[in-house]
């Protein structure tokens, strides 16, 4: 009851005219920043942080929280419409969102993404309200072995992601992880894998360079090959009847939504994990538990729902350790944390007692921001659909330009643009030979998290891998990961046994 009363007070703060205006403004700005290739919530929050000094601290964090939410919704738009993940959190949405758009179901994919984001965000914020302190304590017990086990589980799901050709999937994972290791060795600080001594490799390979190369350039080259350069207009319509049909279809995905929400929320709480691993794991799990896993990657609505619920739930989860313990769960929350410190609001357990208006006003604003993000997103769907109706010979050069600019903006380095072009061309050639590219993109995102976790774990155990089995949380996760890795093999054995012999 006490929580309910505090939450109601929070709503009174959130519904103050200035705060409500900031929520609507934040959601709209965030939606467009998230939809722009190369820019995500972290860019939006970082760029607009200085502008928040014009309003009181509570309004400031409400505005930044709304941008965060809006950007999480917006990331799905470029994934679905252009096949270019706007941010790492929306990579998994591309896998099925883009094929749905190509089939003429862009409206369906956008409505599914918006609804799933709303469900994920709502579940996330409810869990946030109810279980903030105990969940933060559990997450805090996670050390390097547990983090690595979690990463291994994410990689294990990739084996199921890549289709049937396991060697090509493993190759894709390994090359993604190697590209993630380019730059400076995190422990010794020495340069590592600096190809041809080119200075651009010192800052590593940004995941967006590979992601835009694969899902932007390579995807466009593939589409041009399929269309043979002919004028190709994507069929996409939006009307109330189709929205209703999509919502009915979405009711059938409730299991995926719940799985994505809970998984995403918990992964979001983990320090240094955030929404990206959460959305990738949710996609992998959705595919693993699906009755028709082969339809994933070809436009299965569950493939949009799972990552979108997870990344929104995770974005809320990531705020939990930030607010209660002063530990950010993602890069965006790290910037929010910085903002709180600047505003004189020291995050930690005491913030709940010292600044209840601020904390509960912020929590209540998350409910409101989630609802407004949904409404604003749905209102703009017709504009997004209009883009798809453009002739392909107009859409293609615009997408190419967005890819090039999107590849340049994160690091402001032309080296990355050239690298992106190379990845795009090689990715297109490999795709023609059925090499799955998704695991490489996912691996380059997770590699920089997995390597330090593995090295710290081995340092803790003096080089023994037994540390991953002797710690309870790590042990359970590793066993699940091993089962997932062995699953294709077990399936082959099962199928062989099931197949009747010619004599039988």
């Amino acid at each position, binding site marked *: 009851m006490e929580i309910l009363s505090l939450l109601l007070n929070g709503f009174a703060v959130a519904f103050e005219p200035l705060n409500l205006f900031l929520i609507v403004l934040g959601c709209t700005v965030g939606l467009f920043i998230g939809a722009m290739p190369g820019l995500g919530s972290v860019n939006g929050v970082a760029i607009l942080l200085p502008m928040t000094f014009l309003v009181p601290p509570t309004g400031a964090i409400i505005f930044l929280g709304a941008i965060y939410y809006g950007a999480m919704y917006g990331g799905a738009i470029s994934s679905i419409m252009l096949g270019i993940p706007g941010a790492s959190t929306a990579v998994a949405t591309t896998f099925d969102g883009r094929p749905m758009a190509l089939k003429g179901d862009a409206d369906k994919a956008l409505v599914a993404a918006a609804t799933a984001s709303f469900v994920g965000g709502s579940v996330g914020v409810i869990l946030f309200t109810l279980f903030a302190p105990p969940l933060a304590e559990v997450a805090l017990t996670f050390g390097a072995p547990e983090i690595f086990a979690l990463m291994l589980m994410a990689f294990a799901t990739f084996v199921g992601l890549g289709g049937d050709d396991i060697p090509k999937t493993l*190759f894709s994972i390994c090359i993604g992880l190697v590209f993630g290791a380019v730059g400076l060795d995190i422990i010794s600080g*020495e340069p*590592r894998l600096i190809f041809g001594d080119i200075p651009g490799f010192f800052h590593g390979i940004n995941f967006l360079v590979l992601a835009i190369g694969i899902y932007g350039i390579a995807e466009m080259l593939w589409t041009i090959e399929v269309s043979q350069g002919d004028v190709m207009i994507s069929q996409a319509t939006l009307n109330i009847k189709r929205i209703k049909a999509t919502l009915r279809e979405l009711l059938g995905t409730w299991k995926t939504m719940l799985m994505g929400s809970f998984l995403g929320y918990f992964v979001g709480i983990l320090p240094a994990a955030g929404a990206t691993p959460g959305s990738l794991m949710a996609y992998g799990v959705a595919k693993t538990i699906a009755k028709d896993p082969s339809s994933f990657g070809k436009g299965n609505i569950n493939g949009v729902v799972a990552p979108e619920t997870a990344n929104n739930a995770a974005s809320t989860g990531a705020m939990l350790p930030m607010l209660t313990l002063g530990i950010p769960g993602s890069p965006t929350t790290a910037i929010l944390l910085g903002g709180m410190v600047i505003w004189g609001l020291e995050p930690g357990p005491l913030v709940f007692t010292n600044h209840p208006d601020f904390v509960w006003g912020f929590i209540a604003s998350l409910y409101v921001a989630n609802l407004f993000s949904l409404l604003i997103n749905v209102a703009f769907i017709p504009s997004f659909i209009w883009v798809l109706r453009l002739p392909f010979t107009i859409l293609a*050069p615009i997408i190419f330009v967005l890819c090039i600019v999107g590849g340049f903006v994160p690091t402001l380095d032309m080296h990355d643009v050239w690298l992106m072009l190379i990845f795009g061309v090689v990715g297109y050639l490999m795709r023609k030979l059925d090499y799955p590219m998704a695991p490489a993109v996912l691996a380059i995102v997770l590699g920089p998290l997995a390597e330090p976790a593995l090295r710290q774990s081995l340092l803790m155990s003096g080089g023994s891998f037994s540390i991953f089995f002797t710690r309870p949380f790590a042990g359970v996760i590793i066993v699940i990961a091993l089962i997932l890795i062995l699953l294709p093999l077990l399936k082959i054995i099962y199928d062989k046994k099931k197949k009747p012999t010619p004599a039988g």
Partner: protein
Amino acid sequence: MRMAELVMGLVMGVFSLYLMWKSAELPIGWIAGEGPGGGAWPFWLAVGMLMSCIAIVIRWAKRITPESRSEAPFMDSRTIEMFALNTGALVGMVGLFHIIGAYGAIPAFLIFYLRFMGRHSWRLTGIFAVATPVFMFLFFEIALQKTLPKGFTEPLFLPIFDFFY
């Protein structure tokens, strides 16, 4: 397609060996007090890449994958033409970024693509060739303060920045 499958497997195998050699520039074994050397992680991953390539070539030899059985050409002449035109235009645009900057290269690319490849009217081509860089400038440079390359056209933008700031 069958030949392409083999060539890709072999090329990637050689690339894996290069990565193993490159990773070994840093220690790949155990360092007392420091744990695994800086090269260990990429080295063993490159080993994983090599093993995968060996498996791909073995499966090619046994004709297990659809690509290893396919006798269809990897690219027909029309595909090669489209591929060359598109990648050529992209390389040209990125190259021009260094010389005339984004705001010269983007219109040039759009004019080439829309007018000469897409055969759209000069009017439509002109609208996109002007509107796209203007939008890019306002969104990236003014709203988000992310500077795009300008090459030798840099001084031309100074009065515009003076106007906005």
